[in-house]
């Protein structure tokens, strides 16, 4: 018995070492940093221990802007991308010819580099001295005015960021939902038709509950992914996100570490822990709601 447990620990050793070094230690370190007041990475010293870092971050207007941006992004893109993905999946599920072709088309963004796509989006939306950009040209065509989506008003920039995010996260959701729809036993649909249910009722009463675990999975991962957004904003608005007013929480953490105002791991750690608390809360709420709505 004793020998066995020794063996077991030996087998576990590589994983424990790896997780300890790269997961547990940094996590603990973040907590430690966030409590060290006035830490300087140059001198590796600090004045005291307390919650000052948190209160500083929570009063920093850049951080508040980042929280606002992140929440807007989450609230807009998660329901929108899941909803549109569901519509597209239902469409794909209903057609026979060209299904494979459309599936490939919808999946392409997933295998494309997000930064490259972000730059393409920027060029589509940007207004320069030489051209108004493709989107603005189209707006003109339909009789609209010119809007600078990249350096213009806040709502325009938010619109581009949300549009881009929805577009980027959609392929994965479509992939998951089409396979979820395909796995519903067609006998249920036959039974529902026999029972006289119209297609709307079949969708609401049969299809939706049947694929609800997958939808729930997409919502949870969507929330978490959107809360962690950063590279999308960089691709569209450049690295100085605070100046553009389009920073996200993760972007704020990054800037605190490496940006122009960088070298402040304590503030970064505090911000990271606040993000962690937010994501944890939201996920718990999601789980509570899902107990009532999701049928396994």
């Amino acid at each position, binding site marked *: 018995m004793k020998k066995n447990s020794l063996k077991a620990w030996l087998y576990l050793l590589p994983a424990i070492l790896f997780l300890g070094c790269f997961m547990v230690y940094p996590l603990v370190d973040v907590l430690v940093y966030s409590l060290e007041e006035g830490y300087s990475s140059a001198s590796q010293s600090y004045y005291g221990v307390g919650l000052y870092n948190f209160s500083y971050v929570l009063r920093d207007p850049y951080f508040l802007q980042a929280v606002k941006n992140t929440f807007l992004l989450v609230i807009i893109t998660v329901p929108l991308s899941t909803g549109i993905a569901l519509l597209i999946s239902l469409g794909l599920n209903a057609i026979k010819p060209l299904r494979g072709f459309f599936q490939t088309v919808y999946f392409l963004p997933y295998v494309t580099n997000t930064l490259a796509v972000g730059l393409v989006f920027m060029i589509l939306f940007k207004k320069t001295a030489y051209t108004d950009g493709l989107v603005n040209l189209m707006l003109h065509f339909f009789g609209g005015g010119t809007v600078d989506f990249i350096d213009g008003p806040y709502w325009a920039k938010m619109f581009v960021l949300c549009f881009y995010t929805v577009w980027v996260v959609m392929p994965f959701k479509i992939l998951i939902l089409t396979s979820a729809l395909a796995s519903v*036993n067609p*006998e*249920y649909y*036959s*039974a*529902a*038709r*026999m*029972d*006289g*249910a*119209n297609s709307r*009722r079949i969708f609401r*009463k*049969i299809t939706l*509950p*049947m694929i*609800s675990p997958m939808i729930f999975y997409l919502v949870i991962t969507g929330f978490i992914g959107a809360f962690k957004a950063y590279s999308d904003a960089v691709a569209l608005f450049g690295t100085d996100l605070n100046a553009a007013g389009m920073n996200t929480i993760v972007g704020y953490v990054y800037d605190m570490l490496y940006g122009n105002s960088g070298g402040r791991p304590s503030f970064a750690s505090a911000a990271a822990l606040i993000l962690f608390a937010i994501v944890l809360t939201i996920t718990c709420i999601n789980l509570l709601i899902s107990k009532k709505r999701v*049928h396994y």
Partner: protein
Amino acid sequence: MKVVLRNLTKRFPSRSKKGDEVIAVNNFDFEIPDGKLIGLLGPSGCGKSTTLNLISGLEAPTEGQIFFGDDDVTRLPPENRGVGLVFQNYALYPHLTVLENIMFPLENLKGKNKMSKQEMREKAREAAALVQIEGLLERRPGEMSGGQQQRVAIARALVKRPRVLLLDEPLSNLDARLRLQTREEIRRIQQETGITTIFVTHDQDEAMSISDMIVVMKAGVVQQIGAPQEVYDDPVNLFVATFLGTPPINVFDASVSGGMLVIGKDRVLPVPGVPDGKITAAIRPEGFVLDGNGPFSLKLTRVEVMGRDTSVVSTHPDCRSPFVRSIIPSRKDFRADGGVVRFSLVPEKVHLFDPESEIRVPFEAGGTAQ
């Protein structure tokens, strides 16, 4: 409600581009009398389930018409036909409770048929009582046994008081004991409600035991329709004869000479009116009578005692199957001299078929050879 099928044909396009289309149901012409229990019987792939789907409206026929009573329902969608269908795998909605499952068809009613929640619940309870599952209404399908699930499926099919009830392989997912119980149950429910019921099965026992009438199908073509005993006693062709009965009928390559049926060297039975020549003879297991002076001798392999009666297993070179099975009443003094057992035959249990067409060749039972 009388169900009339007129020249019903269903063809499926072939999967490959070059292949022929598949004829699942070929020219099905049949009138099902009101209030009867009908068994559609045949081997797998014979088109019986397709026939059921055509009646239910889940599939549209290529040709032909379907009438319920005097209404032509051929072009009606399933929900307007007034049919209840019990699926082979029951297709109960797993996320709904039993009560919600049974109420589902009622919730879809529109217009003047619309019911209040209270009415629906009452109707659902009534249907549940009919199949005796009142105690399980709050459960989900996953928490019930196969037999219980099937009762729920039947209740769901009955709750709208359909004109016709259809059951697709109702017993195939149940274990042997439950199968016996459930088929009695189906019979009882059918008689209590008086709804014309059609069920599909590949199990001839099942079909024979509870049906008022059976329809034997093969490769999309109806072979024979009639009361179970009638079809058993009077098969129109070799397929029907071999498909019905356990143990199966014994088939011999035989010949007729001078009005006598000859199997091997034995002149076993007078068959007046049958011309000389080759013939296929099929003898029911119960058609053998142990008789020390009988004309038909077989090489005994073993005797299987089954309590009520005894199964004698023997061989004959001209039998198409490796063993000849005969059923005789149990007796203790069973003897076989030198491994040979002698039988005489019951004429009503012997059927002759044309070796080419496999169609029945009638003869006058009880007659004597000329």
